[in-house]
Every structure is written in structure tokens, then in C-alpha cells.
């Protein structure tokens, strides 16, 4: 029964454990009644692997399940061109349902910057969304 595919739901595809834990922290802030609308997938093992998994497994599934959204959680490693590179792998018809997010460098730097554990950072990002603030999201490393 997992996520109800007939309702809007979001799958998060994280690059690595650090990003997966950010997503866990985000999910812990979701209202219990909506908790099952979000599912964090196993880690892909690298930013390029995220994109390869997306292309190989998820494009077809997203075409089948039109209420599915996806978040690709990747590290940008300070590379300007990575976002454009990632976007180019997303078919035009899915662009309004696929979001590419991640640390500008890597999540380890967010932790080193004193923002807390990955879960705490993820929770702070979720709180910003709920309260329509920009405290965590405005950090220069995001």
C-alpha cells in the first residue's frame, strides 16, 4: 500500500547517506497524516548515479503516475554547470514535477558550518517551508 499513487506524492532520490539523512530530517517535520506522501529511496551512490537511476527507472514510472513528484538530492561540489547538466537529463514533459536540490558544495560542509546534524538541517529546511521563512534555505552553502 506504501504511498498512495493516486494522491500527490514525492519520491526523494538521494546521492548519498548524508543527503538521505537530510531527507529524513525533512520528513520528521511533516504532519503525521501526510507522512506517507513522501518516500526516501535508497542512496544512488553519486550525483551522476542519481541522474542515471532517474533516467533508467523513474521517467517511465512518472509517466505512469502523473501525481508523482521527484526530488533529486545531489551535491553540486561548487560546480556551476552541474545544475544545467542535471536539468538536461530531465524530459521537458516532466520538468514541472522534478526538482533538483542539494548543497552548493556538499552536505558535510553544512555540518561543518555549525548548522547541526544532517537531520537537524533537514528539519530546519522543512520548518522554513511550513512557516514560509527563509532562515535555513538562505544559507550560502545551499
Amino acid at each position, binding site marked *: *500500500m506504501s504511498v498512495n499513487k493516486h494522491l500527490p506524492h514525492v519520491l526523494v532520490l538521494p546521492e548519498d547517506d548524508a543527503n538521505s539523512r537530510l531527507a529524513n530530517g525533512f520528513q520528521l517535520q511533516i504532519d503525521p497524516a501526510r*507522512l*506517507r506522501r513522501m518516500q526516501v529511496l535508497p542512496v544512488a551512490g553519486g550525483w551522476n548515479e542519481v541522474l542515471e537511476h532517474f533516467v533508467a527507472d523513474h521517467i517511465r514510472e512518472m509517466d505512469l503516475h502523473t501525481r508523482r513528484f521527484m526530488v533529486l538530492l545531489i551535491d553540486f561540489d561548487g560546480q556551476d554547470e552541474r545544475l544545467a547538466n542535471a536539468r538536461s537529463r530531465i524530459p521537458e514533459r516532466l520538468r514541472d514535477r522534478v526538482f533538483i536540490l542539494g548543497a552548493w558544495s556538499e552536505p558535510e560542509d553544512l555540518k561543518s558550518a555549525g548548522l547541526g546534524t544532517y537531520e537537524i538541517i533537514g528539519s530546519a529546511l522543512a520548518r522554513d517551508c511550513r512557516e514560509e521563512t527563509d532562515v535555513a534555505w538562505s544559507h550560502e552553502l545551499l
Partner: protein
Amino acid sequence: MSEEKVQFGGQPVYTREVGRTYGQIDSQLVALPIIQGSALDPTSLFRYWLAQMLILRPMPSLISGGSKGDTLEPDAQVTNLGAWFSGLMAHAPSAYAEVESYLKQVMPDLNDIKNPVIGRDARSLVVQFSSEQGGVTPPFEDLSDGEQCYMICALVLAANKVHGPVLCFWDEPDNFLALSEVGHFVMALRKAFQFGGQFIATSHNPEAIRRFSDENTLVLYRSNHLEPTRVRSLKDIQVGGDLVGALIRDDVEP
């Protein structure tokens, strides 16, 4: 009761001999547990907290929905689930809303849970499902093992809410669950215990393990049966790359 006594540093602070009453406590009863039971006494509070502890390693094949009496203390295998359900509902009828709210998320066709009297002091849980095609009311023991675990999870969430905070230690909560459910199941428990109580789980399941972090994961390891189990926080262990991959390779040694 023949005699009861409390000494501190060898000096008696309380003694009571056979046949003597203490306040309104009958001479036949042991008075100390009653006298010590102050709501402000730290020892009493700790004892109460210990008594509330839920230690679970459910065995669905041993669980039936039948019960005689009620309890707030499920046994480890949760064979007294029916009595636990009755106890929670008797303790706080609002527990039903909590149970129903969770179960309807995981089983959207759930309509009702009933615990009718089936004999002298005996009850039996039945679960009613309905959809546009009609309805079905199976006895509790006819639910799948995973569905029975959903019910246990629902009762844990309700217990923490209506008579918590509780400490819940669940041995392998991922057992019996569909792979797509493991993450949701663990996150529902983590979410519910975020602001009160404590949830501790053991697991070998990658999906369950991924729903925790370095800071709240302990790795237990022993190299043979003659050595004590070593316990170390995951954050103190340098695991390179994917944790689950390292666990599969058995490369995570405390």
C-alpha cells in the same frame, strides 16, 4: 504481613509489626509500596516509568484478538494484544482515534475495529474493511502478519499519547512488513516519539537502518560468543561511502 521495616544507615526509619494498621492501610497489607508511591518521589516516578516500558518482539503467529480482562502491559511477543487494546480503550477512549488515524493511513479501506464480548469476561477483536465493492469483517488472527504489526504500531503510538511518555524497545520492527512499508513504519514511530518518550529499535534491515542517522545509531558487534558485545555510536566509527554497503561487506566494526 508479619513485619516490614526500612533502615537508613542502620537506623530504622519505619517499622511495622504484625497486626498494626498504618493510617487507613489494612493490617493485612504491606504498606511500603503504598507509602512510597508519592507522585513527587523520584524513585516512584522512575518505577512508574520502568513499568510503562514496552519491550516488543512480536510473533504474529502467536497473536489472537481474543482477550480476558485488560492490560496496559503487552508481553514481549504481544500475545495479549486483545487485552492491550481493551486496556488502552478503558484507560483513555481517545486512544481509539489515534489507533484509527494510523491504521487508516496504512489500510485506507479500514472501516472499524470492534472488540465485542463473546463470553463471560471474554472479548475478541474484529476488523471491518469496506469499499465500493462491499465489506468484510475478518477476525483479527486472519489479518496478515504485517497487518497485525500495523495494529501493534498503532497501539504503541496510542500508548505513548494517552499514558506516555513511554520507552518502546522494538526488536526488529521491520519484520513481517512489505519492503515498501518499512521506511514509513519506522518514520511513523520516530515522528510520534519526537516530542515525548523514547523509541529504540534493533534492525538488520537496510530500509530501517537508513531511516536513522549516525548520531542516533549504535552498532553492536561481537567477534565470537566468548567476547562481550561491543557497542559504539555510528558517528564515532569512520564509515566511508554507503553505510548499508559497508554493512553488507561486514566492514563496520566498532
